[in-house]
């Protein structure tokens, strides 16, 4: 009885004690009330938002130095505007053709060889019957992913050295007369970069496909078996179509990252002798900006790259939407 009375009395009292009094509108007051109720959540969220503003959005604002003549001792806003001067300078640069050729060459070959290989690897690994053997292969194939590019650079330098194993084998087979300094020869650079990247990431990239394959219903395979499908036929007509959407999404991501020619790797493997094959956009930005202090010019080059990458992302997304019905946005 008593409880009911109190409950009944509350609505009459509420307008007096609510923040409604101060803020005016009822809608706003309920928003305010909800904000207060979730103040802890809001603090957590805002800490993240503040971090993103500082570390993601302030650098985006910093891009305007590409259109200015930025001087290290002055602030960004003080620097004078110079329009597209730095972009024009890059287009006139002797390095332009070389840098674009290396970036696109390495990236596209990586995309067209490096993208399908993990899918093929996953398809074949999935056909291994012995569970323990399958698990061991998987564990071994991830291993190189955990090595840093610096260590891998060391391994490659050891393998490709004049007294290294590759030269020793080729000399023993009389395929060459003299040891070759592979890392000093521009003509070998792309092959080294692409094959070492595949070596490092094959198993790791396959994880996601293996996970997708494990979700395929066993009934589909049984039905295919009854229809008389062989192993290859099951791979092509059951497994592959079932992981189509995973492949689509990963392909879009791969295309959008195509110009990121793996800076870490290039930096470790490049040297002045193979420069004509190893100078990619990312390295050129680092070289002109950080090493030579041409901040504005270097930012302009980096910005051009981002714009092209963005366009590629949109194209890949549209293509995938048409062919595959999967898209990121």
């Amino acid at each position, binding site marked *: 009885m008593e409880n009911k009375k109190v409950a009944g009395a509350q609505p009459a009292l509420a307008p007096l004690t609510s923040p409604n009094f101060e803020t005016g509108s009822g809608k706003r007051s309920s928003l305010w009330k909800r904000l207060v109720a979730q103040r802890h959540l809001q603090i957590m969220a805002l800490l993240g938002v503040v971090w993103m503003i500082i*570390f993601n959005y302030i650098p985006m604002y910093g891009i305007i130095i590409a259109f200015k003549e930025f001087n290290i001792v002055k602030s960004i806003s003080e620097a004078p505007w110079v329009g597209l001067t730095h972009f024009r300078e890059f287009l006139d640069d002797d390095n332009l053709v070389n840098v674009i050729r290396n970036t696109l060459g390495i990236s596209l070959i990586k995309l067209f060889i490096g993208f399908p290989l993990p899918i093929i690897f996953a398809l074949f690994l999935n056909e291994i019957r012995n569970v323990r053997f399958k698990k061991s292969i998987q564990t071994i194939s991830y291993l190189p*992913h955990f090595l840093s590019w610096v260590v891998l650079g*060391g391994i490659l330098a050891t393998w490709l050295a004049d007294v290294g194993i590759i030269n020793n084998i080729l000399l023993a087979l009389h395929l060459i007369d003299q040891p070759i300094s592979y890392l000093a020869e521009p003509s070998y650079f792309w092959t080294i970069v692409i094959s070492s990247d595949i070596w490092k990431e094959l198993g790791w990239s396959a994880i*996601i496909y293996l996970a997708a394959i494990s979700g395929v219903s066993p009934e589909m395979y049984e039905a295919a078996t009854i229809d008389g499908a062989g192993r290859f036929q099951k791979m092509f007509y059951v497994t592959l179509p079932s992981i189509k959407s995973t492949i689509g999404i990963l392909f879009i991501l791969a295309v959008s990252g195509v110009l990121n020619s793996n800076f870490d790797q290039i930096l470790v493997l490049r040297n*002045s002798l193979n420069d004509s094959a190893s100078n990619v956009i990312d390295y050129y*930005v680092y070289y002109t*900006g950080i090493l030579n202090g041409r901040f504005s010019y270097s930012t302009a080059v980096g910005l051009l790259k981002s714009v092209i990458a963005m366009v590629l992302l949109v194209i890949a997304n549209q293509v995938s939407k048409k062919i595959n019905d999967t898209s990121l946005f």
Partner: protein
Amino acid sequence: MFALNRKTKGEALFDIINNILMLCICFITLYPIWYVLVNAFNNGNDAMQGGIYWWPRMFTLENFKAVFESPGIMQSMWITVAKTLIGVVAHVFFTAMVAYAFSRRNLIGGRFYMILGTITMFFGGGLIPSFLLIRDLHLLENFMVYIIPVLFSFFDLIIFMTFFREIPDGLEEAARIDGANDWSIFLRVVLPVSMPVIATIALFHGVYQWNDYFTGMIYINNESLQPIQTYLYRVVAQSSSSQMMVAVQGSAATKTVTSQSIKLATMVVTTLPIVFVYPFLQRYFVKGMMIGSIKG
């Protein structure tokens, strides 16, 4: 049923070829690492002759002794251990905290926050604007440059969020009835049941922290603050290019080979910790990667 399970000749052949193929892949994956390992355990001058493929010819621990006795290398090792441990704990905690808030469906402004974050996955300032920011924040020559700029990752947030949304609401409601606020729900209810995803993100970030040499290279000049990978990068890049210069000129010096064997030993010491950790976390990260990539 019996007939279905019996292998045909073609099936058997397929299995044999497939098994051989997989063994080949394992060999190609492991052998380069093994080659470095046996050479690291071999006498440096002797290794210069080449021909050590399967087992050390003149077994020695001298190379490793040299690594552990070098104060520069050990200091870099400690910096790497410190930045990995602190970095992983800070990154996992901070990213999970933001992800927990973002994952609540009633969060006011939640949609806006998500748009803000999604944009960061596709746009960025690039190298130079980021460098200028780090400089203006006084993070140059500062240990915190390894921690703060990578405290948060929107990609990792999505992985966390997807996982948090699958936690039954009942758990949270029960805690709320007991008078818990959002902080204690996050800390005492959500985090403890999220070990698989925490392990995944911890592994990803741990690998990043352990292997990153670029941060140490561009933001740090002070050698006592430099991580082992940056140290190794300087050794690898410098000595390999000088070695190549020598090779091009057609002469070989004995001294570089000793530095070579120390280089190999340093590489082994740098790699071992992470190679030991990952098999323990393996069962978690397959699931974690699946969650993150498909819905990302």
